């Protein structure tokens, strides 16, 4: 989540804007700084050298060559004194002799290389020396004699001037601070602008995301407000069109589905009345068949049997259409499941044909719909007896998810290509579509009944042979609105 957020559009925009602002501020600042610094230093340096040269010109005539140390000292003091603030330190040398304006000052700034340079050249030598946290300008000059027309002669007197550049340094420092501050402001502005730009993009994108999620949740009437005419507005517009198209198609599909369900329910309903008349008299037919001639008796019994099957099919169709319409309601009641299974088997005369492995009375109780559980067990056992082989075994146990009902037969099992389809309606495993005894809806009704309880049903083959149907039913549930009013 954190990683994703860092890679998000907003973060990327902020970083990009920040980088652009930083690069612009740094390059502008650096150029400005360089020019300004050069200008400041150059100007102060030129002024100092000009001033020093003027002083030397003025005082050089007073100096006898070769000078005494005291004369050198005097000369240095005179030169230093011309600077009003007294920040000048002057060192005058002649061979081994030297004199300075500040007695005892070692003049560490005047490096041997500088002395060498002044000794070997007639030009003015200067150097900026940084030491002990401050910068000083060191200027070295030789005093020359000579007229305007004659070649100048070297006197051998060298003058070194040390001027602290505190003012200049402060000026340069101020420049650096100004550039730094400007950069902070520029960066802050860049971030604000980036956030604004990100917001302009992100708000529509976020709206689009929420809308997409709502559509995914099935709220197909979701639409976006389209503002402006940029690419995002285009996207929103397209989204709205897609949603509208989806809504229309889904509505059509639902309408068709509802019509199909209504049709199935109506057909079943209409079949019920003639079947009610026929069902009522099947016993009469069966009874009388014994007294009829064999052909007629067969015909009568056939009609009677088929009527019963048809009645069961209509029953199952009605039940399925109720599930489809969402009209199936649970009538929960707390019952003993072992007892319920026993009754289901007994009511259908299966007690002697089906082996049971049931826990003792009251061991497994639960809030279920007794009628639906009866249908589930009866369908599974009936299915095992019909399509599997005896012995058929019913087991009840308690698992993690609730009660576990297992119905196992000893037949050949279910072919693997059929297994995924056993709970489908009217699914026939053989391609010849031989009509089975059941309605073809038994297992799908079973699955629906389990599902409406919030349980699961699975079909599998036992390693030792035979099919196993496993039903898991949740047993304890909070008081729910489906409960019987009483």
């Amino acid at each position, binding site marked *: 989540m954190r990683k994703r957020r860092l890679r998000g559009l907003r973060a990327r925009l902020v970083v990009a804007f920040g980088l652009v602002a930083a690069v612009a501020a740094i390059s502008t600042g650096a150029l400005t700084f360089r020019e300004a610094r050069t200008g400041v230093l150059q100007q102060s340096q030129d002024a100092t050298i000009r001033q020093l040269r003027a002083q030397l010109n003025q005082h050089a005539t007073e100096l006898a060559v070769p000078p005494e140390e005291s004369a050198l000292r005097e000369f240095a003091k005179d030169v230093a004194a011309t600077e009003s603030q007294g920040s000048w330190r002057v060192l005058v040398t002649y061979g081994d002799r030297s004199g300075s304006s500040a007695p005892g000052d070692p003049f560490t700034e005047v490096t041997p290389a500088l002395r060498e340079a002044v000794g070997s050249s007639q030009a003015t030598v200067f150097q900026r020396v940084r030491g002990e946290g401050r910068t000083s300008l060191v200027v070295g000059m030789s005093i020359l004699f000579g007229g305007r027309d004659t070649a100048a002669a070297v006197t051998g007197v060298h003058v070194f001037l040390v001027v602290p550049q505190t003012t200049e340094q402060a000026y340069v420092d101020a420049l650096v601070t100004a550039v730094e501050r400007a950069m902070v402001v520029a960066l802050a502005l860049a971030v604000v602008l980036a956030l604004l730009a990100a917001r302009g993009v992100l708000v529509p994108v976020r709206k689009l995301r929420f809308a997409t999620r709502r559509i995914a949740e099935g709220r197909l009437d979701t639409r976006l407000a389209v503002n402006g005419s940029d690419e995002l507005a285009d996207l929103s517009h397209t989204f709205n069109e897609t949603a509208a198209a989806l809504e229309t198609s889904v509505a059509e599909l639902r309408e068709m589905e509802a019509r199909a369900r209504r049709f199935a329910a109506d057909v079943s309903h209409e079949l019920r009345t003639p079947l009610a008349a026929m069902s009522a008299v099947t*016993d009469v037919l069966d009874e009388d068949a014994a007294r009829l001639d064999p052909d007629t008796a067969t015909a009568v019994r056939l009609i009677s049997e088929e009527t019963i099957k048809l009645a069961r099919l209509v029953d199952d169709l009605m*039940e399925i259409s109720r599930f489809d319409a969402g009209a199936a309601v649970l009538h929960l009641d707390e019952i003993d499941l072992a007892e319920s299974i026993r009754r289901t088997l007994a009511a259908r005369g299966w007690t002697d044909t089906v082996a049971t492995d049931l826990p003792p009375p009251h061991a497994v109780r639960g809030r279920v719909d007794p009628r639906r559980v009866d249908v589930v067990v009866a369908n599974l056992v009936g299915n095992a007896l019909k399509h599997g082989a005896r012995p058929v075994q019913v087991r009840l146990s308690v698992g993690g998810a609730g009660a576990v009902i297992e119905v196992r037969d000893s037949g050949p099992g279910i072919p693997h290509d059929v297994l995924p389809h056993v709970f489908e309606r009217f699914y026939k495993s053989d391609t010849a579509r031989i009509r089975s005894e059941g309605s073809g809806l038994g297992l799908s009704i079973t699955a629906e009944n389990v599902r409406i309880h919030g349980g699961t049903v699975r079909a599998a083959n036992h390693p030792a042979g035979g099919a196993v149907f496993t039903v898991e039913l949740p047993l304890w549930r909070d008081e729910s609105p489906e409960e019987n009013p009483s």
Partner: protein
Amino acid sequence: MSRVLLIEDDPAVREGVALALRRQNHDVAATATGEEGMDRLRAFRPDIVVLDLMLPGMTGLDVCRGIRAVDQTLPIIMATARGEEVDIVVGLEAGADDYVVKPVLARVLDARIRAVLRRASGSAPRAEGLPKIDTYGDLAVDRAGLTVALNGEPIALAPSELRLLLTLSASPGQVFSRQQLLEAVWEHDYHGDARLVDACVKRLRTKMSEPPRAPRYIHTVRGFGYRFAAP
């Protein structure tokens, strides 16, 4: 041999059911409308009424209420379209004793008729040694005469209601599950519908003038069943 009044609008169903019931040795009178059925009531004096719920004109529900207005004890079996949940519940609460779902086999209908008639004939469960008349607060239950009186006034109960009250009051304090009551009162040996019990309890409470919020005699044990308490 019992006298069955069949009220069914569809001619084929009416004839088929009547034929089958006659074969089961019942004396059957069949009518096509509710009004006609109500007219035949006095002359035919049936032991039981088999009533279709969907009738033209006067509906099955109206007929059921009409019969209950003149005879509280005449057993009624509703024949209905299965799963029309509202119809079943409303029909049961209007006073029907049992219901069957169409299409129904004649022997199933016959078994239901016999069960309801057994109830009506008064073979109530009766513990040995109990006094003939039990008194619980304002309620007096005569187990021999099969009458119930509230504050000395006899109240007319339908067979299912009487049998339910007799069953519950035979063991005051004991909790009966709906399933147990179905078996004891309706003799359903399959997983019957708990709505029968709930509807019957509701009718019984109304007749015993029980306050709906705080019943004195028949208490609901939530998620399980019912219990009779002597106040």
